[in-house]
């Protein structure tokens, strides 16, 4: 059957530059087309290489060089300086007609009598300018739009819109909803009864803290640029859309609707693909991911295995018996979370559902050889993508 390959659109797909329909079409094509999937891996490597470039600081002396190349400031310019002071202080600036291009650079007459005053104003302005840079920065803030009710930022009610600065809390009551623009990489919708804080926003990292409530994130940035801290794990975006909820006891539930999310603590990591979910608990961290269409019996058994003491063998019996090919997502994670005896049982069931690829041996998998586990995971992902 003829298939239109999508290799020319893969960078735009990775950057979230395509329409929803086009993205869906390409995602569907990638699930079925090995050639385009390989091309996509290549593009993603290129993206990762490019995004690893570090921002460089301009030489400190550069401003002096630029300033020395500019015509000297004039009285009129000094007078205009006050508008920056007003700007810094939050006052409304007065409007002066912009210079016409044909007038060239600063077509003001030099007025020596005003220079002393201008110098004084400059000192004041430099101080205010320093405050403008070093104080709370609007540039390090995210835009917030009220969707309903009365959301607050640091207890101040916002009107139609507001700014969420670093360290500030956005809170919704039971009748409020809000939407956050995550820099220029995505958006987060905040449900009622939610409390989130902006922890960090910079080119290499954007981070929220979700203390309680529910948020829906859609991120179109390269992987590992957007993170959400919860009381029991960190959700690391791998290019995706997902819903994350935290209850009053600090437990969380992640449900991924597109792409991948990693749930992490220093000692444990769970990879959750689209259609998958994962619970976390304080003290334990991320549980084992599962597909939400797995049987109820399977999910109950997994919850007992992850978070309750006792009955592990019985729970594992149920999980192994109930598992489908797609549930190799759960079994693959369980390989490294079970002891030797249980691990052997998990391995046998996993191999029965989807035999390991060439180069992955039973001994290697059982001793948790990471290269072999990754190779097996690469193969298993094909079944995880299928509906």
């Amino acid at each position, binding site marked *: 059957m003829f298939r239109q390959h999508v290799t020319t659109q893969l960078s735009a797909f990775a*950057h979230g*530059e395509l329409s929803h329909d086009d993205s869906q079409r390409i995602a569907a094509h990638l699930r079925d087309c090995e050639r385009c999937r390989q091309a996509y891996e290549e593009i993603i490597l290129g993206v990762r290489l490019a995004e690893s470039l570090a921002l460089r600081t301009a030489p400190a002396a550069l401003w002096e060089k630029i300033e020395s190349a500019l015509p000297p400031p004039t009285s009129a310019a000094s007078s205009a300086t006050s508008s920056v002071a007003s700007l810094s202080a939050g006052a409304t600036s007065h409007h002066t007609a912009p210079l016409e291009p044909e007038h060239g650079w600063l077509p003001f007459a030099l007025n020596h009598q005003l220079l002393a005053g201008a110098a004084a104003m400059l000192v004041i302005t430099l101080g205010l300018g320093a405050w403008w840079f070093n104080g709370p920065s609007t540039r390090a803030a995210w835009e917030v739009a009220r969707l309903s009710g009365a959301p607050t930022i640091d207890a101040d009610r916002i009107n139609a819109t507001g700014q969420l600065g670093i360290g500030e809390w956005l809170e919704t009551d039971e009748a409020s909803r809000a939407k956050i623009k995550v820099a220029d990489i995505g958006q987060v919708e905040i449900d009622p009864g939610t409390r989130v804080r902006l922890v960090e926003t910079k080119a290499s990292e954007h981070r929220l803290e979700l203390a309680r409530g529910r948020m829906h994130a859609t991120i179109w940035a390269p992987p590992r640029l957007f993170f959400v801290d919860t009381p029991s794990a960190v959700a690391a975006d791998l290019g995706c859309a997902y819903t994350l909820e935290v209850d009053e006891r600090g437990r969380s539930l992640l*449900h991924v609707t597109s792409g991948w999310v990693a749930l992490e603590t220093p000692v444990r990591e769970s990879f959750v693909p689209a259609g998958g979910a994962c619970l976390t608990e304080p003290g334990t961290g991320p549980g084992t991911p599962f597909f939400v269409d797995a049987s109820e019996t399977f999910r109950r058994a997994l919850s007992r295995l992850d978070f309750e003491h006792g009955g592990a063998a019985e729970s594992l019996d149920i999980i192994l018996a109930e598992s489908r090919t797609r549930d190799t997502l759960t079994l693959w994670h369980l390989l490294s979370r079970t002891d030797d005896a249980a691990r052997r049982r998990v391995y046998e069931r996993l191999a029965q559902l989807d035999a390991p690829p060439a180069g992955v041996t039973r001994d290697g998998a059982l001793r948790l050889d990471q290269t072999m586990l990754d190779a097996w995971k690469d193969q298993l992902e094909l079944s995880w993508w299928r509906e």
Partner: protein
Amino acid sequence: MIAETEEWTKSLVAAGKREIVMSERETLMTEREADERLIESCQRGDREAFRILFETHKDKVYSVTLYFFGGDEALAADATQQVFLKLFTRIGQFRHDAEFTTWLHRLAVNVCLDEHRRRRRFIPFGEAFGVDEPRVKKSPEEIVGRGEAEVSIRDAIATLKPKLRVAILLKYFEELSYEEIASAMNCSKGTVASRLNRGHKILARRLGHLRASLFRGE
């Protein structure tokens, strides 16, 4: 716990099916308004406003020029200086119907490409055949201090054709959308997509050996 989990899962599945759509029309204007007021002050010849504008954008412009010129710091500093001098002398021409950052990036792109064309007349044969050579050889200090991988990536970026290089740099340093890059480079969004695609592929092929270290870093 289990019953709660079930309920929770159900509610999340329902929530996950709800499409999340952010309307561009709802994009907030506060930062843009602040920029506009700052630019108005610059247009009145306010030196301190210039300095604020410079401080706001200098590192990104410098980084773009530094990587464009293969790590040549002196050349990057000169190019950055040119960009801001042009910006300040022409800011009276700026009209608020255009995005200021796009305008700034267009200046930066032009300075880089002009300088590239100017230097092309005097530099090695390689470029004449479509292969740019990195301007700066890596010093041992760079290799040890910044890491071989970073130097390799910088060098690989420097060997991209200028228009691919600019597209990559605007995307990753300025974090521009394809539409903004298209505007800065005076081309279509499709051309931007194509240039980025080619750039990514070339980087991946030249630096495939870094894959393991890159992903291990996760």
